[in-house]
């Protein structure tokens, strides 16, 4: 088991290396980070030349990548612009846990990301929970009542939900639950931010600010998951062992929730497990619309200023999470499915 995990991790490393090189190459051409450093005015020539040198942006791309990967504290760099390397660099490289420093804010990338991860996870885990909970409810319900009127209505509704672009759901829900409700004198929901500063960051505030973004995020995923769970359940319910269980006179509850769901759980757990790491990246569009201070917005803010360390940091974090979660999902799957053993 341990050997399997180690083996898988080592298989993941070259993959991450390839990803990092590819992304780094892309980063080189996404814009000029110094262009917007002057604030509202154009960066002066002298500042531009100095910053380019100080930030190491004048180095060849291979060197920049190397510094990003393993740091530059082993070599001398030229900090004063006289062309002679004078001081040892201060970067440790991503392999040693140093994601670098944001070009824009001059804060360590790990700190920037660290500040946002809890917010993103709060939003995303909440919507994942809502999604999976209702998807299980709906998916199992309509699988058990295949072809019933309710099943047909739900299938059609799920299709519409599944086809909804997230921004459209967001705008519609904002319009209805905030704008129209307010107009009608109903209790209305806040649309942006994480809490109302007048009230403070109370759990209740966070909760009501989460409702609309969680709703918007959940609609599409809920539809996809429901359809998946429904078809998985249908497939499992048509299996011989379910017929066996029924022929034994087991109560329906036991047939569905023990015999069928336990088998259906395998693919469902897999899908959820593989989706989880993507939650880290947050929902770019949703976070933007609802002004949620998460990773997605961090990404947008910094990609628009070509802040390579932050953008790379977020992307590599997500990519690594995907690799790790694949392994975790495999392990959980094997643990759940007695037919699979590592040894």
């Amino acid at each position, binding site marked *: 088991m341990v050997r399997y995990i180690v083996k898988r991790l080592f298989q993941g490393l070259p993959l991450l290396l390839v990803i990092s090189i590819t992304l780094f190459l892309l980063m080189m051409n996404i814009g000029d980070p110094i262009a917007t450093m002057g604030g509202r005015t154009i960066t002066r020539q002298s500042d*531009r030349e100095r910053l380019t040198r100080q930030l190491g942006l004048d180095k060849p791309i291979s060197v920049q990548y190397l510094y990003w990967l393993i740091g530059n504290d082993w070599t001398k760099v030229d900090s004063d612009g006289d062309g002679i390397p004078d001081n040892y660099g201060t970067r440790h490289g991503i392999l040693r846990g140093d994601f670098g420093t944001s070009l*824009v804010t001059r804060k360590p990338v790990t700190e920037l990301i660290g500040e946002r991860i809890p917010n993103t996870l*709060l939003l995303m885990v909440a919507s994942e929970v809502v999604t999976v909970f209702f998807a299980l409810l709906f998916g199992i319900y309509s699988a058990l009542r295949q072809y019933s009127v309710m099943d047909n209505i739900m299938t059609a509704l799920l299709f519409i939900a599944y086809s909804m672009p997230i921004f459209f759901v967001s705008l519609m829900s904002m319009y209805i639950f905030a704008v129209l409700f307010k107009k009608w004198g109903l209790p209305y929901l806040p649309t942006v931010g994480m*809490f109302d*500063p007048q009230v403070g960051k109370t759990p209740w505030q966070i909760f009501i600010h989460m409702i609309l973004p969680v709703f918007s995020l959940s609609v599409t995923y809920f539809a996809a998951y429901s359809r998946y769970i429904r078809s998985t359940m249908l497939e499992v319910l048509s299996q011989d062992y379910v017929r066996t269980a029924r022929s034994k006179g087991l109560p329906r509850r036991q047939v569905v929730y023990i015999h069928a769901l336990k088998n259906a759980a395998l693919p469902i757990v897999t899908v959820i497990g593989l989706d989880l790491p993507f939650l880290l990246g947050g929902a770019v569009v949703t976070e933007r619309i609802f002004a949620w201070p998460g990773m997605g917005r961090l990404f947008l803010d910094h990609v628009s200023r070509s802040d390579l360390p932050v953008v790379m940091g977020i992307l590599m974090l997500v990519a690594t999470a995907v690799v790790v979660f694949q392994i975790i999902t495999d392990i959980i799957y094997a643990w759940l499915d007695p037919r699979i053993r590592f040894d």
Partner: protein
Amino acid sequence: MNHMKSVLFLMVVAMLLLSACGGGSAATSVPEQPGDATEVPATDAPASEKKVVTFSWTQEFTSLSPLYSTGWFTAVTQQFWNCWAWNYDENNEPYPYLVTEMPSFENGGISEDGLTITLHLRDDIKWSDNEPITSEDFRFSWAMNIDPKNIVSSTYPEDLVTSIDTPDAQTVVLHFDTPSVAWQSLFTGIVPAHILQPVYDAEGTLDNAEWNNNPSVGCGPYNFAEWESGSYARFVRNDNYFDAPAKIDEIFIRFVPDDTAQTTALVAGDADLGAFIPYSEVPRLKEAGVEIMTQPSGFNEGIFLQVSEDFSHPAMLDVNVRKAVAMSIDFDSFNQDVNLGLVKTPGSFWDALPYYNDPPVEPYPYDPEGAKALLDAAGWVDSNEDGTRDKDGVEFIIQHGATTREVRQELQAVAQQQLADVGIELEILNFDADLFFATYADAGPTYSGELDLQEWSDTPSGFPDPDIYYWLCSEVPSDDNPSGTNSFYICDEELDALIQEQASQLDPAERQETVSKINQIFHDKVYWIGAWQDPDVWAVSSRLTGVKFSGVTPFFNITEWDIK
């Protein structure tokens, strides 16, 4: 083991609920985390006793340190907790703040040759930890700025100062190689030497100083309290402030990412102050009783014309054709309709500086017929009747590039149609700001020679000083000068000489004369076409009183603000 597994089996759902609890507990633990919950206004003593105002910023500041800050919002926020050598009032006139008087030729603060400037500091000024602010802090701030080990955002104009003497704690003597008008932009924020010198000594740089993002010691009317990235920052009254204390107890800054969110908050009364209000939001705000205040800050939205033998469309080399272009676009109607009549069409790059825009330059009037006549006279006629004028087989097709900001795209669309009406085809292009302003070295679009018209909002570089530099011949980019900013490739000898001349004219009257000449050249040769004035637009809640703004140091009288 087996039993455990079947439990887990049953708990596919429960597993997820577990993570829900994880999320939930994260939510509940959040308030305890940053600062104490007791500091959050609502949970504190009766809110009525404490005066808290909420400002909404559409952009988060980057670093708080004056050395590292970039961007307008950071500079503005410094007004709360940091201090400038001199402040500017609502007329954008400077007045002494940390110094006893503004240096001038008359009071001897500026030497006859303009190479030495002496600042006399007040003796009652102090940091929020009660340490006095001395000439050493000034010298240290300057030295840190130009130290190559610090990756500061800009070393201009500090790099014009060759050395600083501090004969005593209240005297700062600045030495220059050449007289420079840019001295007025020095000491826009200072850093505490007694806090940061040890950091610099230990780390060899201030880049990673904790103070940058968590300035425990400041010198403004408020102290920094906390900052949560992406959400909010808080400032509380500095009880050790050396001037009259502020009336409002606490400033809460909320980061909202877009204008809609900001408007919503302002209308709902969730925010008391908003900055950078787009004109499209103004009616809603006014309707809700929010006051809109505009303050000239030097900026004007304008079209920069590229005039280059090498790159430009041949037609654009003809000054009459450029005039025709200016006359073909109806900026007044655009400002009336889209900008809701809140701003006028500026005729001059110095529109916000009446002293230098004298005699005032008027924009070219919207006159499509006149434009057609000019174009006809210049030989640009539609000889092949395809709807677009041409000359010597060259069609009159020019490019207009801008960033992706919506109102610019709207102007582009309007201009495209209006230019088409006079027979000029306008291709419009948009880029993200970091791509649009990329350098010649990075093959940025403005330097590619493709864009005959380049649009953005800009200001004289040392506002309220009228200095400009883009149009200098030395700024024309080339392989040898890859960072040059003259993306218009305009090297006009007369203009170049005048720009150089004004930069070292420390006498305002002489300066006014030079700038007026430049102003007139800009107009006559049509190097820049004003689109709309771009003042700071503030939305102020009606419950705030005593509010004044400056276009340079917006919160110069923040201590006098109060809540009704």
